[in-house]
């Protein structure tokens, strides 16, 4: 494959309005090549519009962006030749069979008939939908459609894939499969721009995250940095002997921070911002001769991060529905 520029996506001041709605109000992004980069934001934040500008489906009103070194407006055709889009609505043809969908994309990308069929069969097999290959996609489940959609995106292996809310509306099992596929893509060196409303998804997959709200990037960093920038985590300790909890509390209070006694009589936790302090605290317990059964360090959840950054709560991952998403 040809050498990629260090930044797979470089966007400066992207703007897009629909009538009075400022869908995207000045977005800057710098996505390193080979990474999974998360764009995290609630419904209506401007994620899809940003992706559509980067994938050359709509032209920005202002600002500019280069994808894999090519300008999205002036060299849109070159961009389209290197990227694939898995849209928010599954971008597959429901009135065709699964195999026909993949053969269609293969033919459009220049494969001859036999090669397009062979590639389609290879992908149907790899994505676990070979059994349904001959059935019309409108009869497929949401999770299967999503996988077909991603398969269609790699009929010819792209250098960059846009995934727009790939697990919205999927049950947990299908969601895990989509995550596995995204990780496999990334492991092969494909850059992924992942838009999601789900904090857990960004945390699970992304190397870097831009938090977006009302058309603007309001925070950026690794999941760890984002968490560290707001609030503190806590050190949880479980003792061998519940009878020594009061003594342990005194030690941790002095070495780490405010102690909270947990419902479990052998457990307690101390407010703690960084791992080094936590290590000192555990060391002090050892020195005082208090036996420790186990300990862990919790970071604040991305939910807390989002609340702290935006002042409102982000939506939660629904716990498993096969319903079609409403868009």
């Amino acid at each position, binding site marked *: 494959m040809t050498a990629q520029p260090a930044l797979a996506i470089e966007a400066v001041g992207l703007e897009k309005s629909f009538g009075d709605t400022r869908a995207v109000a000045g977005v800057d992004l710098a996505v390193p090549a080979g990474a999974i980069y998360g764009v995290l934001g609630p419904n209506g934040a401007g994620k899809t519009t940003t992706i559509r500008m980067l994938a050359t489906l709509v032209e920005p009103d202002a600002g500019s962006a280069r994808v894999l070194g090519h300008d999205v407006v002036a060299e849109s055709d070159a961009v389209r030749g290197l990227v694939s889009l898995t849209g928010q*609505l599954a971008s597959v043809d429901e009135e065709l069979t699964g195999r026909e969908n993949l053969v269609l994309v293969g033919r459009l*990308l220049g494969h001859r008939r036999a090669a397009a069929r062979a590639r389609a069969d290879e992908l149907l097999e790899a994505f676990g939908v070979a059994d349904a290959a001959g059935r019309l996609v409108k009869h497929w489940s949401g999770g299967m459609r999503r996988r077909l959609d991603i398969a269609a995106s790699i009929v010819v292996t792209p250098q960059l894939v846009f995934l727009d809310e790939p697990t919205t509306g999927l049950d947990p099992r299908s969601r895990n499969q989509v995550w596995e596929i995204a990780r496999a893509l990334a492991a092969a060196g494909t850059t992924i721009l992942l838009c999601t409303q789900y904090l857990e998804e960004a945390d699970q997959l992304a190397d870097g995250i831009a938090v977006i709200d009302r058309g603007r990037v309001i925070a950026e960093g690794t999941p760890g940095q984002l968490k560290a920038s707001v609030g503190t985590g806590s050190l949880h300790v479980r003792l061998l002997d519940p009878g020594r909890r009061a003594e342990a509390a005194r030690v941790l209070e002095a070495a780490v921070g405010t102690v909270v006694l947990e419902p479990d009589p052998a457990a307690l936790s101390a407010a703690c911002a960084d791992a080094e302090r936590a290590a000192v605290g555990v060391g002090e317990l050892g020195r005082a001769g208090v036996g420790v059964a186990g300990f862990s360090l919790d970071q604040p959840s991305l939910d807390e991060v989002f609340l702290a950054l935006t002042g409102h709560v982000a939506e939660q991952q629904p716990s498993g529905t096969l319903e079609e998403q409403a868009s």
Partner: protein
Amino acid sequence: MTATTTAPGSADTAAVRRAIADTVRPARPGRLSTALTFGWRGMLKVKHVPEQLLDVTVTPVMFLLLFTYLFGGAIAGSTSAYLDYTLPGLLVMSVLFTTVYSGVSLNTDLTKGVVDRFRSLPIWRPAPLLGSLLGDSVRYVVAGTVIIAVGVALGYRPDGGVGGALAALALVVVFSFGLSWVFSVLGLLMRSPNAVMNAGFMGIFPLTFLSNVFVDPATLPGPLEAFVEVNPISVLATASRSLMAGAPDGTAIAVSLAVAAALAAVFLPVTTRLYRSR
């Protein structure tokens, strides 16, 4: 067995990795080949959803039976005389109704998101629109053939013979290519496939009835007669009638083709512009 398949096989991560590792990038196909691939897609849809063909052919066949046997005697003196008059017009009606589906299927693509896939591919941009004409033309020909066949079964024998009937069918199909762009624009502007269907028929239905498809306009009150005379559907029906009768009306044929060309000239560019920006 239920209609929806759930919990089938799982993705095989190792196989996915192998598939991604294959970085073969074929040469880009030519414009014609790309449009033909979309034509193939249109054909597949006709194959998978044949009910669509049924929808569009049943209504005109129903009108054919109703008008011929219910009003034929009253309008033209005898059912066979009326069949001679109205069948070439019903051919027009049958095929023009089908053009509404061009807009409906375009709108379906948009609401389902598959257009986003096409627009993100490195392909010649008008190809999806031009390719769909191929699938459409199959629908036009089937709709037209069915109505002629039913007419023949009821005793219709055009003086122009098979050649005249084919010429009339060809003219109507060419006119439909022009008209279909009007419905493509509707398909790009409206919110749902149903809205396109309703708006489309709201336009085409009265226009068809206010033409000379069913009655000779000479029997109509003045202002209505004037409208019916200039209605392009009347002109097309006249042209179709003349071809079927083996006595081609050059003016009507030329005007029909000119109207089709004008519709395409206006609405094709609007369609491509809307298609790009939506």
